[in-house]
């Protein structure tokens, strides 16, 4: 009989040498961030009138949104396709998506010149703008992700609300609130799960539409009217590799075995998914006859080739092999390559492909920009660690539940 896995708290020491390095990286990022708020964007970044968008939009926002796709693919598999076998990956993926999107929102917040007007799109609408659509959908998707996470909070605290001393009078009302939430959510959560999937497809594709308006400023290798479709397909194919990647890192970090019985079947879906993405990418290249640009050797053609070969073709071949799917290190490598490929694709679309007609030099991110981006990633990992230690997110073998309990939809 298979071991029943139940989401539970991870009990480990929070501070390890790795965690301390992450804290230092986060602090370093925050210092540069302070400069941005006191002296303007120009004081920290290499952005200028020729290159209005750089690392923060290309990586923190565009790549961030793509790499948080694990939440979507696992929700689609676990809830929409209703495969109970995969329920153990849903919660960690949901948490990553929730934190990932939160940092996307923070990334937008620090990049826009007038951060205190970030709420403007809520009441000032421009239905023609792809950015408006991305903004609204991301805002709603973050909200939906938080709602999807609520059952984990209620599960953690129902029957355990125990505030001390002067706040103790709140215990009963809080308990009641949690119970109402839990009851309400267990009946309505499917609305939000489906909504999350719809919102995901909308904003992933609109993120691709974003650069279409840049027209001639974008290198023809990337500039295509099917960009929205390519963005959506690549986001879908990077979802499970992210889940595999995180699950293996978490297993290593918390000293448990990699969950190969769940991860291997996920790997089976990746060859077809990557195949579809590759077919559209190559097909688009041949229809628009942009392969001619690959004959000249420059940054654009090299980056494009790396993106296709290292990011799609090699992992695609790897996922076709049973040996790779069953071997933790190889599966991890193949997944990392897909992640690298999609990451590079977003960087290419938003930074490498962008060539302004009048430029006085090229753009490369400053130390400040890199520090802030690295700092955000470090903060995200630190928060993830705090949350899995305090909420039942990661599944661990549990002897007390030898028999499967009846399934209820929970985050």
């Amino acid at each position, binding site marked *: 009989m298979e071991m029943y896995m139940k989401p539970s708290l991870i009990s480990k020491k929070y501070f390890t040498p790795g965690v301390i390095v992450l804290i230092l990286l986060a602090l370093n990022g925050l210092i540069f961030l302070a400069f941005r708020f*006191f*002296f*303007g*964007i120009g*004081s920290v970044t290499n*952005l*200028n*009138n020729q290159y*209005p*968008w750089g690392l923060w939009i290309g990586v923190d926002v565009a790549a961030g949104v793509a790499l948080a796709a694990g939440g979507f693919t696992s929700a689609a598999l676990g*809830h*929409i*396709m*209703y495969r*109970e076998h995969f329920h153990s990956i849903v919660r960690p993926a949901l948490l990553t998506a929730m934190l990932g999107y939160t940092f996307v929102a923070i990334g*937008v917040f620090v990049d*826009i*010149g*007038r*951060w205190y*007007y*970030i709420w*403007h*799109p*809520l*009441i*000032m*609408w*421009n*239905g*023609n*703008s*792809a*950015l*408006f*659509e991305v903004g609204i959908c991301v805002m*709603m998707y973050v*909200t*939906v992700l938080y*709602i999807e996470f609520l059952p984990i909070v209620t599960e953690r605290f129902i029957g355990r609300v125990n505030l001390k001393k002067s706040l103790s009078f709140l215990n009963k009302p809080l308990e009641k609130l949690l119970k109402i939430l839990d009851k309400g959510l267990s009946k309505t959560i*499917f*609305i*939000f*799960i*489906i*909504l999350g*999937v*719809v919102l995901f497809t*909308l904003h992933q594709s609109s993120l691709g539409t974003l650069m*279409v*308006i840049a*027209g*001639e*400023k974008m290198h023809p290798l990337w500039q295509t*009217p099917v960009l*929205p479709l390519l963005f959506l397909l690549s986001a879908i194919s990077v979802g499970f590799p992210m889940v595999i990647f995180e699950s293996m890192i978490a297993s290593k970090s918390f000293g448990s075995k990699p969950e190969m019985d769940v991860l291997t079947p996920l790997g089976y879906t990746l060859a077809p998914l990557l195949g579809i993405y590759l077919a559209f990418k190559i097909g688009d290249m041949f229809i628009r006859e942009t392969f001619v640009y690959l004959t000249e050797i420059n940054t654009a053609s090299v980056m494009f080739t790396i993106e296709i070969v290292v990011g799609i073709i090699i992992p695609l071949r790897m996922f076709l092999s049973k040996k790779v799917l069953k071997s933790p290190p190889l599966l991890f490598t193949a997944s990392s390559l897909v992640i690298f490929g999609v990451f590079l694709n977003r960087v290419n679309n938003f930074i490498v492909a962008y060539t302004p*007609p*009048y430029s006085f030099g090229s753009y490369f991110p400053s130390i400040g920009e890199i520090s802030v981006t690295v700092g955000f990633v470090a903060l995200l990992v630190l928060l993830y660690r705090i949350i899995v230690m305090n909420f039942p997110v990661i599944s661990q073998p549990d002897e007390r539940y030898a028999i*499967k309990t009846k*399934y209820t939809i929970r985050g």
Partner: protein
Amino acid sequence: MEKQNRRSFLKTAGLLTAAMTGIPNKSAKAAPEENILSEDRMGVLVDTTVCIGCRNCEWACKKAHELPTESLESYDDKSVFKKMRRPNEAALTVVNQYEKDINIPVYAKVQCMHCDHPACVSACIVGAISKRANGSVTWDTDKCIGCRYCMVACPFQIPSFEYDKALNPEIRKCDFCFNRTKEGKLPACVEICPVEALTYGARNDLIKIAREKIKKYPDRYINYIYGENEVGGTSWLYLAGQDFSKLDFPKLGTKPAPGVSESIQHGIFAYFVPPASLYALLAGIMWLNKKKSESEGVE
């Protein structure tokens, strides 16, 4: 109606579909004088064969927009022509010199072209940029969030941003002297030009004038009006004696710049039918799969 839409939108994500159908209606009902292409819109015809590179327009522009500037005399300095310059947050228009190797240099003034179908207007996340009835494309400081998507979108690379300001950085570009023309005055650059290289008038008339000029002096001009059809037409039009690529004008198609992106956007959203159908489809799949899984029971 509008208010209700906003409120229900904020209320709950569950009402998404109902609330969001308001978008197409709303954009169609936008303030009457904005984003409607008027037949009588104004424009400026720039005759680069006449311009003498005095840069008085640069000075007048700064004065009209209350930007810091040195005295008018200092603009006689020709050394600035050594490098190509671009409009930025400190100078909304600049004049560049070309064909330096021949005896008579050619000058080209650069500023916002005031497109008929502006990419920046289409791109702006909050609708802070609008095409006005008089042809000018203006920016609204009360809406702008400083995302700089207009700069990404602009095919002429015109909008600039105050990167060194921590609070209220502005998007700066030529506003076609909206506040002056409103009062019946000429745009500052047109008014000061000593050689009448700039002609202000209704765009339709300017195209006629330009055609006549080309017909009358075929040796002086190439047979091309830059801006007549570029990205769907611009309010500012240029005449030149040589190919425009020699004057650093970008080679652009005749389709409006926002065209493709808007049709993709509206295709995906088409009155929210595709997203709503997707929602229904997913709900169906989820229900079927759940039923299947329940009937199979615990294995």
